[in-house]
C-alpha cells in the first residue's frame, strides 16, 4: 500500500537532482545556518539565548565587536576608546558615519537611552546584570535609586560616550559582546509602544530598525529568519554576504539531515552519534573546538550524607571522566578536573581532582560508610535528555563499582527540574554553565554566597572574599592568584563536581570562508563569505 503511495508521491514530486539551496546560496552569497531554536525575541534587552544572540550579532553592533578569530574587541560602533589609568572611566568615540537602518545617525545619546532601558526595573530584562559593572547600575535596576543620572553612563556630546564603573572590570570590553550592551533605536521603539513593554512590536520585520551589518527582512516563527545586508551600515562595502537565513530547527537530527541534504551551510550541536560519524568519515565537514562551558553535578551540601565533605570528594574521585568523554560524548570534550575551562582568558586552574577509586573508598570509609555500607539513598536529578541520562547512568555504575553505593536516578521535566534546583530540593543535580564572557569570574562567581545560581547551600567566607578581591583589582596577576586560591577551595570543599568541559561541534561546509572557531562561538558575519565548491 505504502509503496504505491510513495510511487504516486514521487511522480507528483518528480524533480530528481536539483540545485540545492546551499549551491544556490554559494552563487548569491546567501548563507543558511542552523540556529538551534526559534528566537524568543529579537529585542537585545529581552533576548537571552544562543539562537537570539546569533541573529542579534548580525542586526546590532555594540561599541565593540568580537573578532571572529581571537575574540579580541574590535572597534564597532565606537571607532576608538580610552580607559582611565585606574580602569574606572571608559570614553568611547562613536563613528560619525554610524547609521541606523532608517538612516538616522547612531549617537551617544542612543547608547545612554538604550542602557537606561535595559536597566529599567519595569522592563524586567533578564540579562540586565551584564551592565552592573557600571556605577549605580545595579541599584537603579533593583529600584533602589530612581534617577538615571546617577548611573555611570553619560553622553559627553553626540559622538562621545563616557562610562564610569563602580570598580575595575578588566573584561568589560569582552562583556560588551553581549546583547545587553547593544544600542537600540529608542525613538522607533517609542513609536510602537511603551519603551519598557517587553511585548513592544518594534522588532517585527516591518518595524525593525538596527545598526548592524544586516537588517531584519522576514521572521516567520518556527520557519526562518531572513536578514539582508544593510545599505546604511558604515562598513557595508566590507560585508560580503547578501542574505543570511537562520533556520530555527530545534531538532538536532532534523538540522543534521538538512545539512546533509544541502539545505544548510552550517549547523551546530549535531547529535553525539553523528559527531562521531562525521569525525571519522567526513572530517572536512565538521569542526570541533573548545566552548566556554562546564558540565557539572551540583551537590546539595545541606543534605546528609552530602553535608560531609569527604563523601562529596569520594563521589567526585570515584568517576572515570575520560570514559565519559571518550565513549558517551565522543565530540572531543575534555574531562573536567576543575570548574573553569582551561585557558579562560589565560587562566587555568592548578588544583585538580584526583581520580582515585581506592582513595575515594578510603574517604568514604572515614565518613562512616566503609565499603558503601549504610550509605543512604541518594538521588541524581537531571532533566530529560539522552546525553544527561547516559552520563547519569554511567556515573551510577561507576559509583556502584568503585564505592559500592547505590545511587538512584531521577529525571524530571525541564521546568520541574529547574524548580527543584532552585528550591535546593535534590541531592545531586546536573548543571551546566556557559560563560557569559571570557573571564574566570563568570564561572567562579557562581558559587559565592547569595549567588542565584549557587543552589548548593554551600557558603564559604574565604571563597567569597577571594572573589571580591579578584573583582576589585585590575591587576591581572593578583586577580588570577585570587581565582587560583578560590578555585582550590572550591575543589577541596567540592560543592560541585565538574564532569567535562564543553566543546562546540559544528558541521560546516568548506564553501564557507572567513569563519573561525572561538570559545563563545560568536559569529563574525562581516568576515564570512561563500565560495562555490569546485566539482
Amino acid at each position, binding site marked *: *500500500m*505504502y509503496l504505491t*503511495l*510513495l510511487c504516486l*508521491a*514521487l511522480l*507528483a*514530486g*518528480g*524533480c*530528481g*537532482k536539483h540545485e540545492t*539551496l546551499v549551491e544556490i546560496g554559494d552563487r548569491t552569497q546567501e548563507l543558511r545556518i542552523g540556529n538551534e531554536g*526559534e528566537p*524568543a*525575541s529579537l*529585542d537585545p534587552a529581552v533576548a*537571552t539565548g544562543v539562537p537570539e544572540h546569533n541573529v542579534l550579532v548580525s542586526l546590532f553592533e555594540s561599541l565593540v565587536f568580537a573578532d571572529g578569530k581571537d575574540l579580541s574587541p574590535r572597534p564597532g560602533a565606537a571607532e576608538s576608546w580610552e580607559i582611565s589609568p585606574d580602569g574606572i572611566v571608559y570614553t568611547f568615540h562613536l563613528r560619525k558615519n554610524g547609521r541606523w537602518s532608517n538612516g538616522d545617525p547612531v549617537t551617544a545619546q542612543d547608547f545612554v537611552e538604550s542602557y537606561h532601558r535595559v536597566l529599567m*526595573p*519595569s522592563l*524586567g*530584562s*533578564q540579562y*540586565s*546584570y551584564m551592565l552592573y559593572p557600571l556605577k549605580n547600575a545595579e541599584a537603579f*535596576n*533593583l*529600584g533602589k535609586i530612581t534617577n538615571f543620572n546617577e548611573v555611570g553612563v553619560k553622553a559627553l556630546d553626540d559622538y562621545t560616550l563616557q562610562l564610569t564603573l563602580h570598580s575595575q572590570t578588566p573584561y568589560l570590553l569582552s562583556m560588551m559582546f553581549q546583547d545587553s550592551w547593544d544600542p537600540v533605536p529608542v525613538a522607533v521603539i517609542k513609536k510602537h509602544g511603551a519603551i519598557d513593554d*517587553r*511585548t*513592544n*512590536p518594534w*522588532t517585527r520585520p516591518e518595524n525593525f530598525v538596527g545598526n548592524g551589518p544586516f537588517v531584519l527582512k522576514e521572521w*516567520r*516563527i*518556527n*520557519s526562518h529568519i531572513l536578514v539582508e545586508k544593510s545599505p546604511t551600515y558604515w562598513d557595508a562595502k566590507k560585508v560580503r554576504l547578501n542574505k543570511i537565513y537562520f*533556520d*530555527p*530547527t*530545534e*531538532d538536532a537530527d*532534523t538540522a543534521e*539531515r*538538512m545539512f*546533509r*541534504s544541502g*539545505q544548510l551551510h552550517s549547523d551546530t550541536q549535531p547529535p553525539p552519534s553523528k559527531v562521531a560519524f562525521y569525525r571519522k568519515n567526513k572530517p572536512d565537514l565538521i569542526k570541533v573546538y573548545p566552548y566556554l562551558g562546564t558540565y557539572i553535578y551540583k551537590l546539595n551540601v545541606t543534605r546528609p550524607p552530602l553535608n560531609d565533605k569527604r563523601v562529596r570528594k569520594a563521589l567526585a574521585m570515584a568517576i572515570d571522566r575520560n570514559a565519559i568523554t571518550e565513549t558517551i560524548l565522543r565530540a572531543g570534550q575534555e574531562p573536567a578536573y576543575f570548574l573553569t575551562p582551561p585557558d579562560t582568558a589565560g587562566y587555568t586552574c592548578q588544583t585538580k581532582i584526583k581520580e582515585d577509586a581506592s582513595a575515594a573508598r578510603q574517604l568514604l570509609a572515614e565518613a562512616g560508610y566503609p565499603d558503601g555500607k549504610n550509605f543512604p539513598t541518594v538521588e541524581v536529578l537531571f532533566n530529560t535528555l539522552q546525553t544527561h541520562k547516559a552520563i547519569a547512568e554511567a556515573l551510577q555504575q561507576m559509583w556502584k563499582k568503585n564505592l559500592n553505593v547505590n545511587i538512584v536516578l531521577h529525571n524530571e*521535566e*525541564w*521546568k*520541574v527540574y*529547574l*524548580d*527543584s534546583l*532552585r528550591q535546593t530540593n535534590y541531592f545531586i543535580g546536573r548543571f*551546566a554553565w556557559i560563560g557569559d564572557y571570557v573571564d574566570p569570574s563568570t564561572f567562579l562567581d557562581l558559587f559565592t554566597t547569595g549567588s*542565584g*545560581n549557587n*543552589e548548593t547551600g554551600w557558603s564559604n567566607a574565604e571563597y567569597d572574599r577571594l572573589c571580591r578581591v579578584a573583582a576589585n583589582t585590575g591587576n591581572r596577576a593578583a586577580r588570577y592568584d585570587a581565582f587560583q586560591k578560590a578555585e582550590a577551595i572550591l575543589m577541596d570543599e567540592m560543592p560541585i563536581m565538574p564532569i567535562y568541559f564543553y566543546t562546540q561541534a559544528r558541521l560546516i561546509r568548506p564553501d564557507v570562508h572567513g569563519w573561525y572557531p572561538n570559545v563563545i562561538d560568536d559569529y563574525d558575519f562581516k568576515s564570512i563569505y561563500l565560495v562555490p565548491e569546485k566539482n
Partner: protein
Amino acid sequence: MLRFITRRFLETIPVLFIIATATFFMMRLTPGGPFDSEKQVSPEIRARMEAHYGLDKPLFQQYLLQMKHLLQGDLGPSFKYPGRSVNEIIADSFPVSLELGCEALVVALVFGLAAGMVASLKQNSAWDHIPMGLAMIGICVPTFVLGPLLISAFALHLDWFNAAGWYFPRDRVLPALTLGAYYAAYIARLCRGGFLEVLNQDYIRTARAKGAGGAQVLFKHALRGGILPVVSFLGPTVAGVLTGSFVVETIFGIPGLGRFFVTAAFNRDYFMVMGSVLFYACFVMACNLVADVVLVWLNPKMRFE
C-alpha cells in the same frame, strides 16, 4: 437537525468554561514558572517580569482577569515569545497545520478506506493479509521512526525532496505521508472490521440479487454502515490531525501549531497553554459534533433522537 446543532453549540459553552478553569488552575499548580531558566535571574527581576504580565496579582483575581480577556477573545501575550500574542501565534501557525492535516487526512482516508474495503471484500486472501499486515506495521512504526526513514530514503539518498522545511509544494509530500500513514493504518483496520460486519448483512445479499456490481454494493450499500466505526474514530482524530502533530512538525521543521501544544506546556507559557487548549477544545468539540451529525446522517434510525 438545526436544533440539535444549536443545542450542541450551547453545550460547548459550559464545557469550555470548565476546561478553561481547570487549565488555569492546573497551570498555576505546576511547579516551574515561565521565567525560570538555567541561569537564575535575581528575585527582584523575576518579580518585575511577573508583574509585567500581571502574575503578581492574587490568583483568583488573575483568574477573573483572564476569563474576562478570554470572553473578549483575547488570549493574551506569549511569555516565551514576547512581542507576539497568542492569537497571533495561532493565526500564523494554524493554517500550516491545517494544510498538512488535510493532506495527511486525504492520505489516511484514501489509503485506509481503500485498503480496509478491499481487505473486507477479499477476506482471508492475499488482498486481505498484505494490506492488513502493512497496516499493522504502520501502527507499529511510530512517526518518529517513519519520518526519518522516509527522509533518509527520499530526501538524502534519492534527493527527490528536501529533508525538512515548508516552502515548496513538494515539501508537503513526506510529512503528509508520515502523518497520514499512521492514521491510514488505523482507518484500514477499523474500516475492515466495520465492512466485514456489514458485508455479512442480508441487505448486501439483496443488493447482489438485484444485480448490483461490486462497486455499487460497496459504495451504495455497505459504505454507510461500514464506516460507522471510522467516523466515530475520526471525530477526535481529525481534531488532533488538523491542529498539528508535534512529532511530525518537529522532524520536518514545519512552522505549525502542533509544536506549541507541547512546547507551551514545557515553557510554562500560561497564556499560550490556555489559548492552545481552548483552541483545541473548540476543535475537538466541533469535530465530534460533525462526527455525530455524520453518524446520524448515515443512520436514519438515529434521526428520531
